[in-house]
């Protein structure tokens, strides 16, 4: 029956028939499973990358804070060394 419908469809529009065949293939249980699997892999990948971006951002923040800490410590030391000791 399906073959007959397809044959009629091909006689009307060969391109439409090809599209119907491709659509059927995409909708096959194996193909759906494969797509679900691919989406799951992608989601896991996005999650991993998001976590890596978060970690990198924290490391950048930490490194930038080091510049501030270096300045504060340098200032404390320089100021102490340049202040005459009270007798």
């Amino acid at each position, binding site marked *: 029956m399906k073959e007959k419908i397809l044959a009629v469809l091909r006689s009307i529009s060969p391109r439409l028939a090809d599209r119907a065949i491709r659509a059927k293939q995409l909708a096959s249980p194996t193909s759906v499973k494969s797509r679900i699997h691919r989406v799951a892999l992608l989601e896991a990948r996005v999650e991993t990358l998001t976590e890596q971006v978060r970690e990198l951002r924290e490391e950048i923040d*930490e490194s*930038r804070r080091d*510049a501030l800490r*270096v300045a*504060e410590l340098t200032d404390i030391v*320089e100021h102490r060394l340049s202040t005459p000791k009270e007798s």
Partner: protein
Amino acid sequence: MTNNHLKIDPAVAAERASIDILINGHRVWSVDLLSEPLPKDGVKEWPAALAPFLDGHAEVMVVDSATGEELAGQSVRLGTSQSAIAVVDHQGRWLAVNKWGRMGKSFAGAEEGLRDRLLDHLDDLVVFCESRNLRPFVVGGTLLGAVREGKILGHDDDADLAYLSRHTHPSDLALENFQIERELEARGIEVVRHSTAHLQLTFRTSSGKVDGYVDLFTAFFRDDGTINQPFHVRGPMPEASMVPFSTVTLEGRPYPAPAVPEDWLVVNYDENWRTPLPGYKLHTPQATQRRFRNWFGSYNFQRDFWEEHYESGVATLPSDAHDVRGAEYLAAHVTGGSRVVDLGCGAGSNAAWLATHGFDVTAVDYSPNALSLTCNRLGANDADVSLLRLNLNDFRQYAELLHQLADEPRPTHVLASHLLERMGHLGRYNVLRAFRHVARLGGTVVAVIDTVPAPDVSFRDPSTWHLEVSPFKNELASFGLSLIRPRLLTATPRDHQRRTLLCEIALSPGSVKGSAQ
């Protein structure tokens, strides 16, 4: 119009860039319609900071910010008061919602002399910077007012100056700024450090109230061709748009300005800078905020809140401001007459109690209004306490405190009542380092902490914040500290609601040297 919102006919505001809301003839709020068009129903909620003032009767008007054209008006009665609504501070000066969403004074509501006084201070600061080869130039609302109107903008509230540093590394920029701070303070100027690239010079009246501010920002170019001027400016701009400086005129006075002021104004505001938008809000990109906050710090986290909190006097403060149970506990556990440092003294109830019970007390806070209240309370109690304005978010100031403690021949004890849960985590780390230092020198540390948030917890109000015990213990452990003898206070309904904890903090067994934090 209700206590929660006002409704403006969208047709009235159509094709307007900005509208001002006037209450009894005074601008209290401006809405930037370019950034935030009116909703279709025309309903705008009152800003949270303005809402508490809306109790009484008033003539409310909506006018065009640029032309002053009256667009709508209505007599209203809000709340229960029979008085006319007055959006004023404790000195009767009219306030308006500022760009931070807080109530602030502006030149429009101030007496005439203020502009001249502030410009005199600005002139002095320009001379100071030029004498140190710091290349000063006017920025922000001051530059905008000069370029657009030749005058100080009515909705502005301070004067803004920057200097173009020759440094590019954040550490070098900070060191240069530290030196500038010292030199300004040596001249008797009150300086508030917002970051290592932003100082605020505070000028007071003879009675000690704030008269005005001048901001001093650091500007610098980076190799990537960006102009940087924390806290907001970061964007591409050719150096030729900056130097050699041009001259702009403000209230008839000449000031150095970027070579092409228009380019700087586009980077700071946007292409609409020529349109008057009193309600314009700076939207600093997250990436810029992160970069500047980490490079240059954020030293005054919530200080504005505490300044307002303590401005109105002791009578209006909540019960926790009068709680002395931390002081009583400390007094019962250390030698009488010892030296005690009350960190974050607030209104000074603990400091006054300890002083009147014979302790040698140093009261520390970063809020001048808090120290002023403490001073008044001490006078009333005939108590003697050393007052120390010190910002625990500032590592250098905290180091100075440690240095003083180390010089003491006898152990110093520390009280931190409702301090730890009301700080940012970076500032709290400084306090925990101070605790460790005190503990190593043989001192006792007592803390009072709310461990459950207030029902109306909000970011705007640190007194509603809390610190959960378990994460706090982990934080302490990373500094080689432990929480000991914790007990939940139960005397008041507030104690139950906030599960307020009284505890000691001491060196963890086996970690006398503490961790490397």
